[in-house]
Structures are given as structure tokens and as C-alpha cells.
């Protein structure tokens, strides 16, 4: 029995660990500025915990193998433990864990402790059950006034843009987010109804859109292309259908798109969506 159990534990450990080596089942290739650091931290953590996982399981297996009751008459060793050991492994694990925690903070700090660099591209995101609305300021770079009383889904004014406001004349609203490559982007995240979450796996980035709050986040996407955008916070029955795309465009293509008036903007978007292909899932 003891041997069998040990072997099973070891097999399960091996199987579990090996799953993490199938690179078709790994992160999609990252496209954002902060991603490499984050991936490095993730890899480090996974290695540390993976090793300790393996160590702990192998140790466990070894114990049950070696110390199984072989029917011999001699008794188990009589000990109540060792204070020195306790102190040692407490300190060791404390160092490892706190160390990991502290190292993990740098990425976080770079993303959250500072405002977006000046001149970053602005998009206002207004999520709703179950669709994304991305509000672009247009040529003048000024967002037109929006007000909930003006919201009217039936006439496709999803975010309640005030047509009377001159600065809203050149604004565009689209369900796809188009951002420039290599230039910092600042999103202002809002929600019309319940909590949603802006999640693009390739960005290694996620943030809740909390109703009543306008949360500002910033990141830089480097590789042009089309990426899937998901809602990652339970927001109701069609949560799983709340999907859209993120277009990362070469700067010239992007600025050209942004200067287009409303109608052309829409058609241009459709073209671009057709032009770019989703990354072949690795």
C-alpha cells in the first residue's frame, strides 16, 4: 500500500508539473511594455512554487514509502520535534515568500502608482450589459459631453453623447478599441450598469470597470495586430458573449483613422478589422 501510494503521488506530481511545459498551453505572446517584466516574475514564481510543490510531494511520497509499517515489532521513533528545525524552516519560507512578494511589486508600481505619461492616447471606455463602447475624442482631442439622461440604446446613442456639444461633433464611438502601437494609452474606464472587466490576455492586463467610478489606467502596446478583448467580471447572463477586439495600429495608420469623420471612421474600422488577423494561437 505504502509503495503504491508513493508511486501514485509521484506520477501525479510528474503529470501536474509536465502540464506546465506544454507551451501550446501557455500565455499568448505578450504585446505590452510591462509584460516582459511580469512574465519574468511569473516564471520565477512558478519555478519557486513548482520546485517546492515537487519537493513537498516527493518528500511526502518518500515518507510513505520508507516508513510504511512493515510488520516489524520495533516502534516508531519517539520525538516531539525539534525547535531548531521549526525556526529554520520558518525563516527560510518567510524569506522566500516575502522576497517573492516584494519582487512582485515593481510591475504593479510601474502600472498603478503613477499617472499616464503626458501625451498618451486617450480613450473613454463605457461598458454595459453586454457590449463595449469606446469613445474617441476625434480630431480636436476633446471628448464631447456625455450624460446618462441622453443615453438611448434604441437610437444607438449608447453612452449618451450630447450632439449639442460642439466638441462632440467629431467624436466617434465604436465597439472596437483602436490604439496606437508603441505610444502610451490612457483608458478612462466607466460602466453604465454593473461591474465589468477589461481583459486582453496579450496585454497581461486587467481592470474592473466599476459603475459610478471613472478609473484611469495606462499601458503601452507595442506589436500591431488584432487581439480578442474579453469581459472578465461576472456581469449577467451574457457575460460570456461580451467580446470585442483590440486593434493595435501603426501610429500613422492610427492617427489617420482618428482624424476621420464619424461615417468614414466606421467603414475604415471595418476595413481594418478585416485587414488584421487574430494571432495564431500558439
Amino acid at each position: 500500500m505504502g509503495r503504491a501510494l508513493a508511486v501514485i503521488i509521484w506520477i501525479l506530481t510528474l503529470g501536474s508539473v509536465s502540464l506546465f511545459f506544454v507551451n501550446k498551453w501557455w500565455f499568448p505572446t505578450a504585446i505590452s511594455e510591462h509584460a516582459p517584466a511580469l512574465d519574468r516574475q511569473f516564471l520565477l514564481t512558478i519555478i519557486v512554487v513548482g520546485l517546492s510543490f515537487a519537493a513537498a510531494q516527493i518528500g511526502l511520497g518518500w515518507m510513505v514509502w520508507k516508513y510504511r509499517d512493515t510488520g516489524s515489532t520495533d516502534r516508531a521513533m519517539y520525538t516531539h520535534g525539534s525547535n531548531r528545525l521549526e525556526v529554520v524552516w520558518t525563516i527560510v519560507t518567510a524569506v522566500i515568500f516575502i522576497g517573492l512578494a516584494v519582487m512582485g511589486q515593481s510591475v504593479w508600481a510601474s502600472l498603478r502608482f503613477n499617472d499616464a505619461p503626458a501625451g498618451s492616447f486617450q480613450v473613454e471606455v463605457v461598458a454595459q450589459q453586454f457590449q463595449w463602447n469606446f469613445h474617441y475624442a476625434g480630431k480636436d482631442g476633446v471628448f464631447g459631453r456625455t450624460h446618462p439622461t441622453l443615453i438611448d440604446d434604441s437610437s444607438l446613442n449608447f453612452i449618451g453623447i450630447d450632439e449639442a456639444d460642439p466638441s462632440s461633433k467629431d467624436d466617434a464611438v465604436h465597439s472596437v478599441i483602436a490604439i496606437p502601437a508603441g505610444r502610451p494609452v490612457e483608458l478612462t474606464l466607466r460602466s453604465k450598469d454593473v461591474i465589468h472587466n477589461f481583459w486582453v490576455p496579450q496585454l497581461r492586463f486587467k481592470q474592473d470597470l466599476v459603475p459610478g467610478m471613472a478609473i484611469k489606467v495606462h499601458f503601452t502596446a507595442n506589436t500591431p495586430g488584432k487581439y480578442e478583448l474579453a469581459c472578465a467580471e461576472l456581469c449577467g447572463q451574457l457575460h460570456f458573449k461580451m467580446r470585442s477586439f483590440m486593434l493595435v495600429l501603426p501610429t500613422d495608420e492610427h492617427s489617420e483613422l482618428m482624424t476621420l469623420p464619424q461615417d468614414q471612421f466606421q467603414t475604415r474600422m471595418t476595413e481594418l478589422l478585416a485587414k488584421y488577423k487574430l494571432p495564431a494561437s500558439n
Partner: protein
Amino acid sequence: MSGETHDTHGAVHRHEAPTSFIRKYIFSLDHKVIGIQYIILALVAVLVGMTMSVLMRMNLSWPGTNWPILGTLFPGGAPGGMMTPEFYLSLVTMHGTIMVFFVLTTAPQGGFGNYFLPIQIGAEDMAFPVLNMLSFWVTFVGFVVILAAIFFSGAESTVGPIGGWTGYAPLSALPNSGPGQGMGMNLWIISIAIFCVGSLLGALNFITTLLNMRAPGMSLMRMPLTCWAWFTTAVLALLSFPVLLGGGILLLLDRTAGTSFFIPGGLYVSGVLSGTSTNFPIHTGGSPILWQHLFWFFGHPEVYIAILPGMGATSHILSTFARKPVFGYRAMVFAIFAIGLLGFFVWGHHMFISGMSPYSAMTFSILTLSIGVPSAVKTFNWLGTLWGGRIRFTTPMLFAIGFVSLFVAGGITGLVLGQSSLDLPMHDTYFVTAHFHLVMGVASIFGMFAATYFWFPKMFGRMMSERLGRIHFWVTFVGVYCIFVPMHTMGIVGMPRRFAQFTEYEFLATLHPLVVFVSIAAIATVIVQILFYFNLVWSMFKGEKAGPNPWEATTLEWITTSPPPHDNFAGVIPTVYRGPYEFAVPGAPNDFILQTEPEPGTVPATEGTGNGHNGHRH
């Protein structure tokens, strides 16, 4: 003045059991009966929860399939046999709620704790028998209400609430935010509130009992680790449930009294602007994050409430069947306490990306990883307990070892999630689902399995079938690894939680084989649980008779008959002379010494440690 002792001490002084069926089995005041009632409640609840999990898996891996039976069973949820997304979500919500509250907060604490804490400290009953009975029946009412929530959702399609077990506002606060969010949501909240009351009544009962009713000689450091675990759990429950209760009251007011504690202004839900319609009154000023704080302030301690009793049982059983004292008893006690204490300092790790202040997030992140330390210490001590033992592989031992394995597997991923930066890609993906199923979904459950197999002889006077038990263990152990380890991979690829289908997204396509594999594993595992239930019922009547101490264990529950008499010790309160895990004592007649066995000379409350005899390394 010296402490007055229990007047029952010494003199024989029987409490006779009530005779009428009602007083004996239904509204019983006997902590043993109440404990069994709790366990039965958990066993029923877990059946519901498991069934739901199977339905969920079926929907995930074979979306759009027609299951005629479902069509007939849930005409609203699966019209024509095809599950609707809202039905799936209500399954998720109910699965989570029932499993966390009505399985893992009842069986370990209310069930085994109720039955064995008084016996293990040498008391005749809990401190407040009537309160004890009340706690159970209150909890029972809560269970009935939660079941009702599935069927009286108020929406035309009969599904339960779809807000997830965390009930995030405003989704949970707005009746018009989706099907099932009407009456069903109200019932869900009410059920949780009732449950809170039940558990905190239970908690103060536990604490009082343990502090006030220990038998002579049962010093704190002579208590079995199970008692320490139950005690800490009770403290956690006492301090965390009231906060959820407060939050629940506010949420209910938001839904019924038109207040807006958790509802900000200017919302536009399903075509209606707040304030422009009678069924969507004006709301303003509330904060969704406040609900998350209140919920998780309870929520994180809750998860330790779920696992601490399992840890206690594991330590207890490992030592018993390794025939060896627990390695580092004191360290274990400190670890339990540290986990309990730190458990209150880390709730924010569920809210890293919720819009919470990034600075609090950083603090929470560091505190969260430090809570891994006591857990690690416990793991190492479990290994230390096995080290140099003479391990007897009975079924409870198998499950206890399984607990250690699974707890490590689940726990370490917590260290990934605990880093705020790594939580950016990981939050609300199946990586989280994998994490908490391994620790809570199965480690804690394995603790309960171990406890059941271990204490069944004491509870019913008969052994459970070892053969069935072994089969049950092997399949479940392998099964749960197959179910929950692949979920990590899904999470890394980026599969979000609470998705009714994955067919929408291309980057998830590569995962389809895994999804199917998991579902098959899950269904197999769940089916095998039938063995467990059969084993329970069969052994109750047909199992071989068990003596008072079938496992040759040392603690107080083994000095009395199986099952114990109404007053546990036939009227003679035992006196305790030594520590709880005195196995393999050199020179002793047999390799275990009961706690009640006197010894010439006085015994210190706990043995010295590390005094290097028996080839100890130093």
C-alpha cells in the same frame, strides 16, 4: 480561592437520555445527535452541489447539446433540454454558495466539531445545549431558503440568482439586472443572513465550551490539535460572520427599501435609467467596492474556517496511524493561531483589480504571502510526523495523506495569486478556480473524508468497509487531480471564470480537449462518491462491530464506549495526565498511551522538544 471544579467530577452522576423519538433524534439537545444532524445536512447539501457541478461541466464541454431529461426537470432553465446561460450561472452561484456555506462550514465545525470537541476535552455536552440545537435548526432553515431561491427566482424562467457566490453589487443589488436577480436574489441574501446567525451562535458555544469545560488535567497544551483547530475556527466565525451579516442587511435594504448603499448614481440598466421607472427607483451615492470589502472581510476568514478543521483532523490522524507523536506540537498550535490571525489581514487580495487603492493592494499582497509561512510550517510538520513512523495505511490515513498532498498543490498557487502584479493576468481565470478547488474543494473535503472514516466507528459502533473505502480513495484522489490541475493551464491561457461557454473566443479553442477531459474526470469522480454514501449506510447496519478503541488511539474519545453514552463518559468525568499523542513511548507496555493513563510523578503540560533521543538528528 482556588478554581472550583465541576461538581460532576469524581462522583458518578448520570444524565439519562430522553426517550421520546422527537426529543431524542429531531430536537435533541445532545451534541452528538446534533453533530450527526449537521453531517447529514452537509451530505445532502454536497449531493446537490455535486449534481450542479456535473451539470456545469456538461454545459461547458458539450455546449448546445440537448439533454431531454433536463428539459423535463428544469423547463425554465433548460427549455427543450438545452441549458440557458442564466441557468448555468445560477448553477455556478448555487454550487458555490451551497458548497462553501452548507458543506464546508457545517460538516467540519458544526458536525465533527460538535460531536468530538466536548468528548475530546472530557466534557459531558456543549456549554449551551439549547443554543446548540437552535444553531442547527437555524442553519437548516437557511438551507431550505437557499433551495427555495432556485425555484422562486421571480423571473419567468425558473433559475436561481446569477450573481455568483460573492454576490457583487450592483449586479446583486438591482432586481432588473438579469433573470433570477429578483426574488431569488432576495432569498439568497436572506439565507446567508440566517446562516450567519446560526454560525455565530454556534461559534460562541464552541468557544465557551472549550475554555470553560475542559476536564481536570486537560491543559491547553494537552488538547488534541483538532480542538485547537475547532477553537480557532470558532473565533474566526465569531468575528467574521457579523460583518457579513451587516453587509447582508444593507444589501437587502438596497433591494427592498430603495436605499443605495452599494448602488452609484446614473445607472442605465436593461434600457431603463435609474429614477425614470417605478421598478427602477432613483439610486445615487453608493459604492460597489464597499460591498466587496464587507464581503471579503468575512470571505477570507471564511476560507480558513473551511480548512482549519480539516488541518486539525489531518494532524490527529497522521499521528495516530504513523504511531508517532505529532512533530512540533507547539509549532502546530502557533501555526494554527497565526493562520487564524493573519487570515483577517489579507482579504484585500480578492480585490486587487477591483479599483481598490493600489497602495492597500500592495500591503495586502505582502501580508498575503506571509500567511503562506504558517501553512508551510504545518506542511513541514506533517511530513515530520510521518518521518520515522510506522505508517498503517487505513482509509482515514490514506485520505489524511491525500489532504497534505492536495493542500500543498492548492496552497502554492495562492502564492502566485497573492502577488498583485501576477493577479493582473490571473484574476477571475480558471487559475483561481483551480487554486480554490484544490485547497477548499478537495483538500478540506479530504479532511472530512478522513474524519468520517476515522470517527465513524466511534459514532456508530461499527467499522466502515475498508475495501470500499480504499477504492473510493484511489479513484477520488486521482480524479480530483485530473479535474483541477488542468484548470491551472486553462487559467494561464486566459480562460475566464463564470463563462457559460468558451466557443465565443478563438484564443480558447486550443483548450477544448482539456475542457472535455476535465468534465469526464469530474463525472467519473462524482459517480464514485456513490461508493462513499453506500459505504456509510451499509456500514451503519452491516459493518463489523467496533470496540471502544479500534485504532489504538490516545485521545479521550477512545476511552468511552462506541457509540458513547448520552453523557459521554457514563457520568465519570475523566482526568487527564499527559499530552494527546503519546505513541511509541520507549519502555511503555504498548505503543500508545491514553491521555487518562496516570503516570508516577507529575507530567508537565507538554513534553520538552528536540531533546535528541531515539536517533533524533540532533
